[in-house]
């Protein structure tokens, strides 16, 4: 039994060594530290909130422009007297 465990241990060691030595090493294309990944995902969420906020502001501005255009008060009157 002892002999068998020893062989098994050696075989496992060789297998593990071989697996680690010849495994295809993947190049990390994204920060691997959990804190960095957490920061990136949080920043992405904030970025989307900022985009949505900007879109809301632009949309409000656009609605106001369209309202003014509908009222017809967006055009300059060429006959308006200039203030002295």
């Amino acid at each position: 039994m002892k002999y068998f465990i020893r062989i098994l241990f050696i075989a496992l060691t060789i297998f593990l060594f071989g697996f680690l030595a010849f495994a295809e090493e993947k190049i990390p294309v994204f920060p691997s530290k959990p804190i960095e990944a957490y920061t990136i995902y949080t920043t992405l969420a904030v970025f989307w909130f900022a985009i949505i906020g900007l879109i809301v502001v632009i949309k409000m501005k656009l609605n106001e422009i369209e309202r003014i255009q509908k009222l017809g008060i967006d055009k300059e009157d060429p006959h308006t007297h200039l203030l002295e």
Partner: protein
Amino acid sequence: MIWPKFKDWIDERYDIAELKKLAKSKLIPQHRYDFLYYTGGITLFLFILQFITGMLLAFYYIPHVDFAYESIIDIVTKINMGWFFRSLHHWGAQLCIVFVFIHLFGTLLIKSYRKPREFLWVTGFILLVISIFFGLSGYLMLWDERAFAAVRVATGGAGALPFVGSFIKIFLRGGVDVTGDTLTRFYAFHVSILPVLSLLLIGIHLLFVQYHGMSIPISLEKKEHKEELFFPNVFYKDIIIWLVVLGVVVTLAILLPPEIGKKANALAPPPEGIKPEWYFLFMLETLKLFPGTIMGFNGETIAIVCVSIGIFFFFLIPFLDRKSNRNEGSPIFTVIAVVYIFYFITMTLVGFFD
């Protein structure tokens, strides 16, 4: 206080008021297909994004066969935010080509190419070719085994063209095979020749758009339609869409950063399941349809010739569609457009899932 003074300074030298008047007088037609107008703007935005991210990457990239691969690993692993800008450049390129295709197919379906806008089509088509070559040349910059094999296949395919094929192949590769010379050559194309050409063509394309105004589909031309001001109405809508596109590109860049394979080795066999970039898949699947030899002729050469004829016919559509040029409906060219789009999408999907 500085701003009004600066404004006066500019006003004294340049006729800004006239430019403002021009911008405010530009009208955009409103109809059910007007969403297609925004695809051009999105493409322009993505081009700008590519220029910016490309410039940042060029600070650190070394276009030499011994250092190209290592410099990209350095960009991804050592340079602050390098992984992000590389990923942004990759996804920006993918989406840029997607939107160039959508813009082109939209133009084809609503027949915006008809008289007097033929040269808009020509410049747009050349810009598509340039975008694809941008993609191919940029792909080789990575100098990994997949990029190496893909460029070998693509340039080899061009070599199958009769008469001019071998010249094109050797010109692109800078020799008989893909080597360090090809990398140098593709780098020159990617960062100097193609950007200059694309800037020039984008300028001409935009100039033609301003000159001719926006095209209206034939079916809606005789009907009454509303128009809205480009500035500020459409301009603000453009900005909203650009913000969404920016969000999508950034999200893709973070969630799906492109992998880097093993360093290219000219003597190693190509990796299994090698596929070119998605915009070449329809061509690859078409090549597969042809047998090795057809009546004693090389099947690949015949396939390449057929694809080239198909693309050339596509390019000539504005000059062949006489009915559209007379503002009459031309159902034959609508069918042709649908066939082209259906074939492209189907073959790309077949290639993708194969």
